[in-house]
């Protein structure tokens, strides 16, 4: 396992560096926005004041409160210090709520939606693709082009269409929100049922897209593996297909995991848009309102959380990949 430990160490080290850079980017980019967000927040307090020096005093005070009067590298150090304490700053739009509080209220919904959806979609898609690769014929000719087309419908497109069909025309599923408008979050069965009801549409829109894409990839991989030498040899030896199949799919799944790693980043984008369409109270809608409101502490906070999430997920997957594929550990040992 020495090889694996080396692999692990390298991976973790690399991810830490990536995280630092992501941090810098998250801090820097939103602050390059032209325009003066302080003026906007202060405008509520300035309203009615006509004395120029008074207005200036108010703006200066707000600037001081948000630490905007210091040069940028000092701001960055303050940012890091606050970060270590878990303080992501104060939101401009939701003033005086703290960013971490705003995000915390939303992040649970997003994770509850995206994680299962991505996983379920991935598993179902791969299963479907594996079956398609193994049992060719009608399934191939008819279903494949259909899935190909579906996988090309953008995630938000699928979301909108599901919204239209099930929400508007059939009217059986709710079209927005995370739970009924008349309910207050609590652990009653009524609330939970409402949550599950509202969960369906965003969930299935993400799952369907993932299935389409994964099925096709898995199918190609399965075909490729089934035509490889060791399968032919095993068949000649008389080994039952049932046993061969286990090896084939283990090999075929590996690139799919790589695919999952790579697509996690893009899935975030697609799922964000899906959230926006359904007004699902997750991180996506928070970020959207932050963007439109030029609330850059909140934007920084959201993108940071999302980046951390993706980095963590990638790290976990890469570790998993290292465990599953012995070749990787072997490479590390020499």
């Amino acid at each position: 396992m020495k090889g694996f430990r080396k692999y692990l160490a390298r991976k973790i080290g690399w991810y830490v560096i990536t995280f630092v850079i992501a941090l810098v980017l998250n801090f820097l980019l939103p602050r390059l926005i032209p325009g003066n967000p302080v003026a906007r927040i202060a405008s509520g307090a300035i309203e009615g004041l006509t004395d120029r020096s008074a207005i200036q005093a108010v703006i200066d005070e707000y600037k001081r409160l948000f630490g905007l009067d210091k040069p940028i590298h000092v701001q960055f150090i303050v940012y890091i210090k606050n970060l270590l304490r878990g303080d992501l700053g104060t939101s401009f739009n939701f003033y005086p709520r703290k960013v971490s509080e705003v995000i915390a209220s939303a992040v649970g919904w997003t994770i509850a939606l995206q994680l299962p959806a991505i996983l379920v979609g991935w598993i179902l898609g791969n299963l479907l693709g594996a079956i398609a690769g193994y049992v060719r014929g009608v399934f191939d000719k008819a279903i494949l082009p259909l899935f190909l087309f579906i996988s090309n419908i953008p995630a938000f497109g699928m979301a909108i269409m599901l919204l239209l069909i099930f929400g508007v025309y059939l009217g059986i599923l709710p079209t927005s929100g995370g739970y009924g408008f008349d309910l207050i979050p609590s652990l009653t069965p009524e609330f939970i049922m409402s949550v599950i009801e509202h969960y369906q549409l965003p969930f299935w829109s993400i799952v369907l897209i993932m299935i389409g894409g994964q099925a096709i990839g898995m199918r190609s991989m399965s075909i490729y593996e089934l035509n490889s030498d060791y399968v032919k040899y095993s068949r000649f030896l008389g080994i039952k297909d049932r046993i061969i199949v286990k090896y084939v799919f283990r090999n075929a799944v590996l690139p799919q995991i790589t695919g999952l790693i790579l697509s996690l980043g893009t899935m975030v984008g697609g799922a964000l848009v899906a959230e926006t369409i359904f007004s699902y109270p997750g991180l996506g809608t928070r970020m959207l309102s932050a963007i439109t409101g030029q609330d850059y502490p909140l934007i920084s906070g959201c993108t940071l959380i999302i980046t951390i999430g993706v980095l963590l997920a990638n790290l976990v997957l890469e570790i998993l990949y290292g465990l599953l594929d012995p070749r990787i550990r072997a490479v590390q040992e020499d």
Partner: protein
Amino acid sequence: MHLIREIFKSQNFVIGFVIFTIIFLSTIILPFFLKGDPLEIVGGLFYKPGTYINVSDTIEAKKYELKIDTLSNKISSLITQKDQDLMREWLVKYCNTVSEEEVKVAQHPMELVELWLKHYDPNIKMEGTTIAYRKSLSRLHQKIEKIFSDEGYVIAEKNSETGELAIVQELANNSYVHMSEIPNKRTFILGTDNFGRDVFTELISAIWNSIKIGFVAGSVATLIGLVVGLLAGYVGGMVDDILTFITNLLTVIPSFIILILISVSLGGKGNDIMTTALVIGITAWPWTARSVRAQTLSLKNRDHVNLSKLSGHSLVRIIIRDILPYVASYVTMAYILQVASAILAEAQLSMLGLGPRTTEIATLGLMLRWAIQFQAPLSGAWWAFIPVILSIALITFSLNLMNTGLDQVFNPQLRQN
């Protein structure tokens, strides 16, 4: 040349190519046939697709008499399901001259209405019903009687001085006009959007803009990816380490996030198409760079490359003449994929409001944004966004097909026999 012939033999490629070319050509050719500026506001909020005929023209046009029964069509469309349910309910519950069987048998609205006219009696006592209920019944009866009365309408013109109405024309119930004799009509194949623009014309213009963005962003991304990959792969050493590090960085940090951050920080300057295209291109190159680098690495130690190195050719020349031709096939495929994903990225960005920030230009993503902002899905105005989604899907689909076709040509293993 032989290669090009091979490519066109591939089924996938041809299908994809055909679809894409159709879309592409229609965005160029159709504008000549479609009158009107795509951004001209012609109608109102979400008008349904169809033909709209000027009503005063129909009054002035020549009338033809057609001996067709207008009654049952009118009944079918004017008597709603609610009305029918109301009639059924009354006939079964309160009317004592008709049996439940007869009501059940009368399936067609016309039959139901005839039953109603035979048996409706406003004087029958209805115990426990509200006044509103009884009034709705008499309103329904009036409505039905009006449809049955063969009176027809009378057109009057107002005298501008005296304000009196003078009868100009009498319209019978069975007079029709011929469509070609109406000068003012407008057909909206896909209805109007929230601004009142003709969706079809706007769609064509939007597809053209989105394809433009796709190609620019795709070119930028592929170019950067190519250069980075070639340099990293061939030069190796410190250059490789730095470039690989940057590439991996940008692969893991969700490009979408970087897109958002950059678009947000551009603020007001990100108003036009080219800026968006550039931003997408700058964030999309990493995976191309990775693959080009891998290929370059495997080509680095080939004989002809070593020969060139021995001959003292310059770095640039070696890369261009010895390595590039071999990665060309992959780069072409990568380019197509980049274009497809750029179009998709633009749509996503514009939907969030981070794309071209203007109502002067239409792109596919912007059309979706307006549709959602103005609640098209909830008002059932499917024509405002379903065609857009389908176009995006078709374009990316055709590009991906072309890519699969090319893949099969370049990698014979994948060919399906």
